[in-house]
């Protein structure tokens, strides 16, 4: 699973350009002969059919996209200006390396700034080593997207990479699918790898409209409050198990689902934590407001330094998230 996580994280997939991540996941699906389809916006759907009486339709969503940058302008000397895609933290950008879809790399430089308050995205630029505009245009164009370049690394049980938000969610769902692939399930499950979560949960809404599930579950990362002077007040820590989402700014999870998640975790002795997130959203926010309303919940993998190139998760949390998801989906809803 580690190798898969590494491949997923190092893959290229800013919101709206998830093709490479999707192909990678399709490659994994083919290993256990899962059938899939892709919708208009690019969501990848895998259905575990169940026509049995009383079977409920459950949508399990993990978003494939990551935050990124988009080129808006190329100057005479070949420097690129850009805007953010999703919640980009501008203060971590100077000095970073970036990667384009075609493999071109660049570095982020900064104009001279007199006062710290002058600092903004429009004072930064990307240098791809081009000598002039013409040469730059051979490699990139306006509208091309880039992601931060950051290698995967591991220290003990903890791994660090870019876009663990939410490739770790994708890995958890893929692993749970594998483990469930030969077991009969009481419900009909739609595993969906969604697009454009980072720009406002835009993929999850139409796909839940299409699939009309009875219940929704988003598998995503959540913030932790266990670092020095944390920015977010949350009780969630790294290494203490998957988090059962109670609330974030996009959704108040349905008590029936949070209750079920807690019950399943306790019966199976899986450690878990309760997540109340002040700021941040997940696909459950879009799913639960689709059609007449869909009771939804969230299974979250605790993650430090979200939206930086050094997001960090604990592998025990990852394994326990897989266990909880597997047991949840074996359970009746």
């Amino acid at each position, binding site marked *: 699973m580690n190798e898969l996580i590494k491949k997923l994280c190092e893959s290229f997939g800013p919101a709206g350009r998830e093709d490479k991540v999707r192909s990678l996941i399709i490659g994994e699906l083919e290993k256990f002969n899962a059938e899939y389809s892709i919708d*208009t916006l690019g969501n990848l759907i895998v259905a575990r059919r169940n026509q049995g009486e009383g079977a409920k339709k459950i949508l399990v969503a993990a978003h494939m996209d990551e935050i990124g940058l*988009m080129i*808006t302008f190329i*100057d005479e000397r070949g420097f690129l200006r850009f805007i953010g895609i999703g919640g980009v933290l501008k203060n971590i950008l100077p000095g970073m390396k970036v990667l384009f879809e075609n493999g071109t790399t660049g570095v982020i430089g900064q104009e001279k700034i007199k006062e710290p308050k002058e600092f903004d995205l429009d004072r930064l630029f990307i240098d791809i080593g081009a000598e002039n505009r013409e040469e730059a245009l051979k490699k990139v164009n*306006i509208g091309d997207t880039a992601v931060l370049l950051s290698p995967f690394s591991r220290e003990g049980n903890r791994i660090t990479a870019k876009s663990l938000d939410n490739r770790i969610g994708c890995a958890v769902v893929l692993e749970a699918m594998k483990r469930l692939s030969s077991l009969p399930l009481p419900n009909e499950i739609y595993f969906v790898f969604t697009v454009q979560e980072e720009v406002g949960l*835009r993929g999850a809404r*139409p796909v839940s409209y299409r699939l009309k599930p009875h219940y929704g579950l988003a598998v995503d990362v959540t913030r932790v409050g266990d670092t020095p002077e944390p920015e977010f007040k949350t009780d969630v820590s790294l290494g203490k198990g998957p988090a059962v989402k109670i609330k974030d700014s996009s959704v108040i999870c349905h008590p029936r689902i949070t209750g079920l998640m807690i019950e399943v975790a306790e019966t199976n002795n899986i450690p878990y934590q309760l997540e109340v997130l002040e700021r941040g959203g997940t696909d459950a926010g*879009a799913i639960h407001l689709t059609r007449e309303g869909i009771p939804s919940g969230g299974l979250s993998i605790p993650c430090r330094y979200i939206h930086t190139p050094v997001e960090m998760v604990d592998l025990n949390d990852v394994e326990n998230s897989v266990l909880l998801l597997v047991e949840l989906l074996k359970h009746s809803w």
Partner: protein
Amino acid sequence: MLITALSQIPGVSGDEARVRNFIKEKLSLWGIKHHTDSLGNLYALKEGSKNREEPGLMLCAHMDEVGLMVSAIEKSGHLRFYKVGGIYEKYLVSKPVCIGANSVLGVIGAKAVHLQKKEEREKPLDAEKLYIDIGAKNKEDAEKVVKVGDYVSFWSEASSSAKIIKGKALDNRAGCAALLEILQRDYPISFTAVFTVQEEIGIRGARVAAYRVNPRIALVIETTSAVDIPEAREQDYATSLGAGPAFTIQDESVIAHPRILERLIEVAESQKKPYQFRRYGGNFTDAGAIAPAGSGVAAGVISTPCRYIHTPVSILFKEDWENLVEIVDAFIRSVHEKGLEI
């Protein structure tokens, strides 16, 4: 000329009836079937000349413009107002306006300069410090012609030279005019053209329109900001006049579907028409409501670049608008000839 005629019609968000009636008249004249929904969106059903499978194509342009609404009438007969949509306060003072269904003429006034304190003179005037003067003697007199809740639009005569068109509400009457131009032509395939309401206050009309039409592909025809002016740095231009219609890659509301964007580029190049990308990630368009509607729609945006947008004196280049029409035309034909796999 369609753009200038449309530009002069008052049609602030929620009060699009006069624009809609103008368009309906044209549609009836040209024998195009149309209907209006409960929010006021106008749907024109353009039938293709060849009997071919419905491609699920929706074209869309919003009819509404930014403006004001009367919020209170002072004892003195002066009107206070709220803003409707993204209007910049510093552009308001000393502008002629037109109020309510009867188009009462007024001007936006403020305290005379010699009465303003130093700091008042240095800062743009807030909407609260401004009022509309319709020449009424007192509240009673004013209430004979206007009431609280009346919409207020800029009053600005549209004019044109060989090169430019000037007027209010070019955002998005230029888009409406383009759609009307397209509707007069013959196409082998059928499509639905929607003139939407309430775009400027949060893309509200397009949401229900997309749900109703349930298209597979949508192309939004818009007007977008050009900031190619002396003080701006070239990287902040967003778009430039005369460089062709602008294709959106991403704004705050949508990431244009790559297949639509590719096709727009392809048809522009094959028709040898100039085009540019919109080099700015802010603001929203109807595509933001259309893309996530129903089971998802592949949506794109093409815009006429326009300077001084959301003011009574916006300008655009005729050639950009004409090139936009030709690219949209070629896009529709290409959907017929080659299909458009999403």
